[in-house]
């Protein structure tokens, strides 16, 4: 072989299947990645491995009978799913919630945001290759929140706590003191976490400027939640279209600039702090009284349609419910946050390395239960 021949080795891209069974696809997601060595030329998402037909199942259940199924959508944050569906049905049926119910809903939704961001940040850092330490520490804190949920509704994963017209039951007496204690602990935990990771050189090298999602793409793809806010889109339904009693609380919407993985990580940390602020205010201002409006067990909303949405931990989660004046929804469509946030993944990972694909994918924070429904 002459020198020139040796210099012109023939190389060609190859296709590598990430998933459906892979440690870092956060479920049964599959990416067909075309690689040139380590560089990602293209990826093609393949979805549907976890499709359970939840939207169709809604048509065969009563309105309240569908609430447990919403738990199974984004199983990292079931409280928000419950709430989003209940908001839609209440809008459709024109039901007014007692104040204490609304406050409890806000507290649960924000606790859920904390728990979700713990999982999101932990698994993101795990995807960056930090060997389970940040993951376990974040899960330790999530455990405390799950304990609180357990206290409230007896469940640790699929809460089924919200009801049409309020929440299923009032919180036990020991809940609010325990919650106050948790707020103090959680603040310290975030500080500790930040001290470990905020300036970590390897983390900065792995995430700064990596997987940039531009503001335009974020808006065009309909991306919402922390992912959009990291790209500089100041859009938060809690401010833009306040539902429940969010208009009574003071809090900020952290917005990033660069739209890279690091900003997405930072936004989540900042959101955790804001959530703590909201919870503290809600605990202070929570009124007494009933927690659930006087709604019959079988709701029969008038003919019509309604779209209820809220700022779920992952972004805008919406339920579009159509009623034909029967006891079951005629149609129920879900706007899945994870699926829509995932649409820009291809643009974000092109040209980066295999390791970045995993890190960027982790920084979007998806749940497969919601992507495939």
């Amino acid at each position, binding site marked *: 072989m002459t020198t020139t021949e040796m210099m012109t080795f023939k190389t060609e891209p190859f296709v590598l299947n990430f998933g459906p069974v892979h440690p870092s696809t956060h479920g049964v997601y599959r990416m067909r990645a075309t690689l040139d060595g380590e560089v990602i030329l293209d990826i093609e998402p393949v979805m549907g491995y976890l499709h359970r037909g939840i939207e169709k199942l809604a048509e065969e259940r009563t309105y309240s009978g569908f609430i447990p199924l919403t738990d199974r959508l984004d199983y990292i944050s079931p409280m928000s799913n419950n709430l989003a569906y209940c908001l839609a049905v209440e809008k459709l049926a024109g039901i007014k919630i007692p104040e204490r119910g609304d406050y409890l809903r806000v507290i649960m939704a924000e606790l859920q945001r904390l728990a979700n961001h713990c999982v999101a940040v932990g698994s993101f850092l795990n995807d960056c290759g930090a060997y389970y330490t940040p993951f376990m520490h974040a899960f330790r804190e999530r455990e405390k929140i799950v304990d609180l949920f357990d206290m409230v509704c007896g469940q640790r994963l699929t809460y089924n706590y919200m009801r049409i017209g309020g929440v299923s039951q009032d919180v036990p007496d020991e809940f609010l003191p325990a919650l106050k204690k948790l707020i103090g602990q959680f603040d310290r935990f975030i500080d500790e976490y930040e001290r470990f990771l905020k300036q970590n050189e390897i983390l900065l090298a*792995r995430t700064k400027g990596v997987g940039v999602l531009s503001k335009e793409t974020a808006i065009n793809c309909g991306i919402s939640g922390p992912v959009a806010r990291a790209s500089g889109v100041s859009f938060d339904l809690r401010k833009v279209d306040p539902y429940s009693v969010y208009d009574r609380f003071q809090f900020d919407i952290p917005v990033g600039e660069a739209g890279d993985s690091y900003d997405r990580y930072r936004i989540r940390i900042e959101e955790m702090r804001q959530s703590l602020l909201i919870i503290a205010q809600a605990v202070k201002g929570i009124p007494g009284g009933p927690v659930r409006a006087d709604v019959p067990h079988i709701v029969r909303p008038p003919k019509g349609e309604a779209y209820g949405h809220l700022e779920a931990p992952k972004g805008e989660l919406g339920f579009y419910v159509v009623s034909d004046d029967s006891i079951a929804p005629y149609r129920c469509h879900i706007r899945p946050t994870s699926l829509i946030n995932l649409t820009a993944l291809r643009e974000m990972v092109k040209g980066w390395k295999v*390791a970045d694909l995993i890190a960027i994918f982790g920084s979007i924070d998806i749940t497969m239960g919601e992507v495939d429904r």
Partner: protein
Amino acid sequence: MTWWPGNYWWHWLFFTVVLIGFVLVMVLMVIYVERRALGRMQSRLGPNRTGPFGLFQPVADAVKILLKENIVPDKADKLVHWLAPVIAFAPVVLIFAVIPFQNGALLADLNIGILFIIAVSSVTTIGVFMAGWGSSNKYSLLGAMRNVAAVVSYEMPLALSVVATVLVAGTMSLNGIVAQQTIPNILLQPLGFLIFFAAGCAEINRSPFDLMEADQELVAGFHTEYSGMKFAMFYLVEYAEAVAIAAIITTLFLSGWKGPGLPPWLWFIIKIFVVFFLMVWTRATFPRVRIDQLMAFAWKFLFPLALINLFITAGQVLIWPDGLPWYVIFINFAIAGVLILFGSKLFKLGWGRSEV
């Protein structure tokens, strides 16, 4: 070797058996230490059910893995797939042949001991690459390629930092290097120690340089397609390598078997565990670097520093030919600090994204 009456063949037989036993037992102990320490650092317990304090967990794991079915992929290159674990394992045990457990207690006191280690330890890479290539799995192949790239790059700073130590000691025999260390070399060669530690971690796939088996990306890297005893061999290689690097660091930088009070071989083992604990600590603390950052770190940061360190050491040896005096410790610590500061200021990672 006044304490050892045996003749040549007895010596050979005794040490072969002892070495293999030592490696196997150390690996089991080290796995236990790693799992418990990692557990503590991650605010969980770690294995604590099998035997007292979970001490038999590695044994239970070993038994389990021995009973597992051996699966060879249909399209694998059978011969290469079979040979890879053996070729990866043999050199690691060979490394221990020249490491002194106490004064004169070693299989072969080669006068080029350290050269032997550097030469032999690289052979493991061939086994790893064979595993990646022979499995006909793309994850394995990617992992193996990463391993080869990393080992080729990190061999440079590793060897250069060793050369500096050899200059100070004036001998290449490991027994001689230990015997010469009245001041442990870690004090005389702080920069060399750091470079060797980093490069050593990269050579043996320890975090944060464990890209070859990055479980988040490549499932299990080069040994994705291995199961049963062959997988156990790779697991063994991984930890035997860690023990080997810890033993080399102990010998080169921590004055080997020397120490007050306790018997020398105990000092040797304690120091190995201390160095290994450092590795565990690193693993629990840092995220993993990317492949281009791995290369950049080797070539743009470690390599120049190792070169400068070599030159400075050579100069010092010229000035004080009869052994470095104690006050060089302060000079060298100052130099190491300044160099690392400057190096990290100048160090740029460079490209990360390619246009496609």
